[in-house]
């Protein structure tokens, strides 16, 4: 039985909810059970949508005592004393067992260039911490190339790729070994098979995008992909376990 670790999941109360969607932590856990998802990397909806500092702290409370959730904090470069310094942010992550961070440049209105997030990214590189960011909502695929080139020592996991991105992704995959792609919304016909054939299963990271993505579809895409069992295991859990296993806080 293929086991999965979800690399992109959001917990907590959202502004916009729709009837029928998995809107609670319990609903997400039920879906994880149904889809044989063992663990999920989670960040907090409040950190993304409305109040990053409070959201990061809320995550600690909501995941306390539950070893199925792997904590992720959303990063905010702090100037004018708005938030913790980069050093304090990493100290706090260590204290709260947070093992990855997520960038929200569009949502929070900051630059991805070194003059802005350089300290955060230097510390991520020192700790071998993977950094997550969503395509489309937070940066364009072209901008993901710039990010990979500006921070070659950081493993960058890009989620939310659509099924129409291959012409843009190809050159980045060829030139940026630190580029990893989340599979949740990468749903083109035979997309997983083609990706493995050209760029290797080592660059794909299973994710769902819960609660707005579909875990049932995401596990099926990997389970039924026309690739080897070894490749499926890498995508489903092996690659993200390796990345998180290298983190030294």
């Amino acid at each position: 039985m293929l086991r999965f670790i979800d690399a992109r999941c959001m917990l907590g109360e959202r502004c916009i909810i729709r009837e029928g969607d998995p809107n609670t932590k319990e609903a997400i856990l039920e879906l994880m059970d149904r889809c044989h998802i063992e663990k999920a990397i989670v960040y907090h909806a409040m950190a993304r949508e409305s109040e990053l500092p409070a959201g990061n702290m809320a995550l600690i409370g909501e995941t306390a005592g539950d070893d199925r959730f792997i904590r992720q904090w959303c990063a905010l470069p702090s100037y004018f004393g708005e938030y913790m310094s980069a050093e304090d942010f990493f100290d706090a992550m260590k204290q709260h067992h947070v093992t990855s961070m997520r960038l929200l440049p569009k949502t929070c209105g900051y630059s991805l260039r070194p003059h802005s997030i350089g300290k955060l990214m230097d510390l991520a590189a020192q700790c071998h911490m993977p950094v997550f960011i969503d395509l489309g909502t937070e940066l364009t695929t072209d901008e993901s190339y710039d990010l990979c080139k500006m921070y070659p020592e950081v493993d960058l996991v890009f989620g939310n790729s659509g099924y129409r991105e291959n012409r843009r992704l190809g050159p980045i995959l060829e030139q940026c070994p630190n580029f990893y792609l989340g599979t949740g919304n990468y749903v083109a016909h035979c997309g997983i098979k083609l990706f493995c054939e050209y760029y290797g299963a080592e660059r794909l990271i299973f994710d769902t995008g819960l609660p707005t993505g579909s875990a049932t579809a995401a596990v099926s895409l990997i389970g039924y992909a026309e690739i080897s069992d070894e490749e499926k295991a890498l995508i489903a859990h092996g690659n993200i376990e390796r990345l998180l296993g290298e983190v030294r806080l």
Partner: protein
Amino acid sequence: MDFRELVYGQKPFEGVFVFDVHGHIGFEQGSQLGPNDGESMVHTMDRMGVDGICVSFSPGIRGAWKRGNDQTKDTCKRLPGRVFGYAVPNPFHAECDLTPYFEEDLGFRGVKIHGNIQGETPENDPRYAHAFELANRLKLPVLFHAWMPYEVDRAADVASRYPDLNVIIGHGGLTFARDRAVAACKRYDNVFCDTAISSAPDGSIEWLVDKVGVEKVLYGSDMSFFDCIHTLGKLALAKLSDTDKEKILGLNAKKIFDL
């Protein structure tokens, strides 16, 4: 048939009739997608246990309508009983007549309307009338690309004016327009929704079935844009009875596609 066990074991959907009402073949100009010829799609269908698919030729929607429909015809001929066709009208070419594609059994089973990439033509535009009259006369399904609320409303308008054709609201049941699609399904007996969308959260198909009844929901994948595995898995693992899943996967389509 325990659909969940199929997915857990990565087994094909054998022993159940599976028909995909929403397929595309042909080169996609705007982006590189997966393999998009009929043979590649049938290869995936064989792996998954999908019996048949109804497709339109994508470049023919944006460009040469006759070449597009002829490409669909050729694909149906090469893959009889597996690939069926939607004939696609072009509102800017007055000479466009779809009748020849239905005069003998060439594999065509319906009409596809995709107004937003045909110069933002409204889905109920009079220039599509000949296609609607043909579909109404032959009692064919008409698949609408219906992403936005106004597109769903226009498709519903066609259903009201042509009661003998069956409207399929492609994508619409599960996107920004799901409330409109539900209203249309409830109001008109000849309106159905398909499941072809990548970004619908878990629970959305269950929600739709609850609102409109299982008989109104049809399995559609959007292959070769999306992989058909995507929606098959979502359906198989949904919180629905296996009887309901069988209806959505193919039994409902059997009734309206004359299969």
